[in-house]
């Protein structure tokens, strides 16, 4: 069990670092979605399935969706050029 807990901690640390290191907002939304999923797994490993479900629905689905839709609107306004490669 301790191995699993250590592994999931490392995953969370790696995921958080990946979110920070991704500079393009659109890519960042997708990476943040994966990070939300990893956080959900962490809550599951620590025996909090209720919180894990909330985390997955909000962190992996709702939040990235809102970010992507907002980015689409910003791009339509012509202000998203900084974010485009």
């Amino acid at each position, binding site marked *: 069990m301790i191995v699993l807990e250590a592994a999931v901690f490392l995953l969370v640390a790696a995921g958080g670092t990946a979110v920070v290191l991704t500079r393009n907002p659109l890519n960042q939304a997708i990476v943040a979605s994966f990070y939300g999923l990893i956080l959900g797994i962490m809550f599951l490993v620590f025996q909090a399935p*209720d919180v894990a*479900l909330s985390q997955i*629905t909000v962190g992996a*689905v709702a939040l990235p969706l*809102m970010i992507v*839709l*907002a980015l689409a609107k910003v791009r*339509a*306004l012509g202000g998203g050029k900084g974010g485009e490669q």
Partner: protein
Amino acid sequence: MTPAVRRLVFLAAATVAGALLLWGLTGLPPYGVYPGPYGDVLNQVAVAERKATNVVAAVTFDYRGVDTMGEEYILFAAVIGVAVLLRAQRGEVERQPDEDAADRRAPATSNAVRVLGLALLGPVVLFGVYVVTHGHLSPGGGFQGGVVLATGALLVYLSGEYVTLRRVRPVFLLDLAESAGAGGYVAVGLLGVAAGAAFLENVLPLGQPGALLSAGTIPLINLAVGVEVAGGLVLLLSEFLQQTLVLRRPGEVT
């Protein structure tokens, strides 16, 4: 501020913050040790007292029901705020969504996405209903189930087209669900007052632990929250899509 000064300020602030963090960490209980009495007490009495096998639901919707009501209204206010911010503003015109326009530029949905989305729609809605209605028995509840239900609308958008979503999205019903869910929570709370007990007191028959109809008011509140969250999120989604795909200011890139 030159970069060198900025780095110096950052290093000083980081040192102080790091020291405070380390100091706080030394005061924490050892890894895996739970010193608070409430969790252990609840684990022992919740199933006997409330007949809810999911102790978390017993806490959030019964013992701490007023807190959760506050949280529900935070979400309610947030959805209303977004709807107000994203409303059609003066000078914005509706244009046809790309999919409808004669010179359409939106890429057609691939058949793989379409089939997968439609195949997932039924199971996702069923799973959402399951999560909402079994909140007092197993992990889940109105909030999580409501978001899963709202994902169904997202699947319709992904696998069909925006115009399809506009057709299956009756705004009146969404508003109704959003408000009925928010009002339903208070209504369940007033049941307690009507029965001569306190607000949000669990006055309904509790039944047998593990049965679908058990735990008194907890499944009712779960249902109210589920309806509110599902309605609110679909409303959010459609407001965002409306802004992104339909409304244009004069001179804006279409």
